[in-house]
């Protein structure tokens, strides 16, 4: 209809490498389409397709092949972003770029321009040695600049509120207690929120999958009851003190207004400081041991 190349590409069918043991989707119906809508030269590369898409080329497409790679790479990066997975250069070259590997940088640059301009997503190289990239949401940074300068914890007050309930109820909260808070925020079980979607799925599945929350059966409860705890990622990316600050803010007061919780948060801060100091000491010890070892074996070439 619009002169769009009718190539039956399935860019979003890509599975990340090592995603799962099940084989990637191969799609015979693409071949069916390619026979119906494309005239000559249907070409399927089974090797390259093992992990990637079923791609059929005709001459017209091959001419604009580079442009097409840019578009497919955009889809692939979007898919990875939604899966919250990082991307390596290897992934991109194996799955998408393939025969255009010599144009990798150009294709990547054009794709990242699209992503930035159209979706407000920034492609960042997080590891220049292993060539690992990640997409960052530019919009969140500016939107949430006025909230805490925590990196990592999703800035939605929703998660902070849930972490707050869990903390203030003795580091575990029942489902009813969590719903009390969510109801106050306008979220109800079974009622889809136009941004968050269905809240129960969000707290019992999505945030659990992302390791921000733990949702488990209360031991020995019969009939089974369930409780929420902080997940490992919450412990890593925020702290009891920060969450208490958030709780205090929504109650229009200061953390010291809650003496018991404040003490617990202080203890937590101390433990974290000690853990950081211990880690630094370990790193220093390893470094000094290594330099001693190198000094004594100076004849052996060493890779640092």
């Amino acid at each position, binding site marked *: 209809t619009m002169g769009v190349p009718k190539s039956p590409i399935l*860019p*979003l069918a890509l599975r990340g490498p090592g995603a799962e043991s*099940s*084989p990637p*989707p*191969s799609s015979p119906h693409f071949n069916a*389409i390619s026979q119906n809508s494309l005239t000559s030269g249907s070409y399927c590369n089974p090797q390259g397709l093992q992990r990637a898409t079923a791609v059929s080329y005709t001459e017209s497409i091959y001419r604009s092949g580079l442009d097409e790679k840019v578009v497919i790479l955009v889809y692939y990066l979007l898919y990875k972003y939604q899966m919250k997975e990082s991307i390596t250069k290897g992934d991109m070259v194996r799955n998408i770029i393939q025969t255009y590997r010599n144009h990798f940088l150009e294709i990547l640059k*054009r794709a990242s321009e699209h992503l930035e301009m*159209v979706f407000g997503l920034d492609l960042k190289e997080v590891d220049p040695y292993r060539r690992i990239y990640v997409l960052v949401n530019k919009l969140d940074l500016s939107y949430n600049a006025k909230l805490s300068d925590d990196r990592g914890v999703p800035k939605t007050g929703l998660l902070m509120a849930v972490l707050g309930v869990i903390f203030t109820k003795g580091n575990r909260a029942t489902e009813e207690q969590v719903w009390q808070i969510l109801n106050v925020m306008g979220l109800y079980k079974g009622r889809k929120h*136009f941004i968050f979607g269905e809240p129960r799925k969000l707290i019992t599945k999505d945030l659990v999958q992302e390791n921000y929350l733990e949702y488990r059966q209360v031991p020995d409860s019969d009939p089974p009851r369930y409780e929420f705890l902080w997940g490992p990622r919450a412990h890593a990316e925020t702290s009891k003190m920060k969450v208490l600050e958030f709780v205090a803010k929504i109650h229009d007061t200061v953390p010291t207004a809650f003496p018991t919780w404040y003490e617990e948060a202080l203890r937590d801060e101390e433990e974290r400081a000690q853990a950081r100091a211990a880690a630094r000491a370990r790193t220093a010890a390893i470094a000094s041991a290594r330099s001693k070892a190198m000094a004594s074996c100076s004849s052996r070439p060493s890779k640092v």
Partner: protein
Amino acid sequence: MQGSTRRAGVMTDVHRRFLQLLMTHGVLEECDIKRLQRHCYKVHDRNAPVEKLEDFINNINSVLESLYIEIKKGVTEDDGRPIYALVNLATTSVSKMASDFAENELDLFRKALELIIDSESGFASSTNILNLVDQLKGKKMRKKEAEQVLQKFVQNKWLIEKEGEFTLHGRAILEMEQYIREVYPDAVKVCNICHGLLIQGQSCETCGIRMHLPCVAKYFQSNAEPRCPHCNDYWPHEIPEVFDPEKEREAGVSKSNRRSSRSRQH
């Protein structure tokens, strides 16, 4: 392909956030889309006037053109509600959903799709779909597992379930109409009024032409004696109620007056 630079002035953070949020939802009803649009303005450009939705979406689509994706507007087949979905034009198959599903799951969807298209009612029974579980490509799937996969399709808005039977969600129709027409040209049904792909609808018992329920409602609107537009025989079915945005808005206003206003900022 670099036509996007020409249109660079159109994409602001308001549009980008809208696109990001729509992408995560996949499909939204019109009322939600409007609220989403207002939310994006509130967050990124508080003082700007909210652009008319149609123009807003056309602006975004002009930028998306170079990526072969589009925000498409459709209508639900059962009650005529307007919906909007982000669809991928370059692909002609189960693309968007394929990212979340394994090979055998995709094949299950394909089998369900074929049963739905071949059926008279536009619905395929759970039993019939599950009976095909042995024929699936990829890892072997048990019927119990297949039931859960079907529920996943429902949750992700590719299928609708009604009383143990499955049909296509409006989103699937928007995304895959082209594909379906190409791959199943003989089995495909088409609405006599709007000529769009038809999965659910009413048919004339004499000459066999079909119409979408919302198309029936609109066509026979104030007609006391509905007759088939093709063969003029009496139309034997009940004329359904069509979705009326005005009525919906009135109902919504009275509801929100009762509910206390609550800030939606998080």
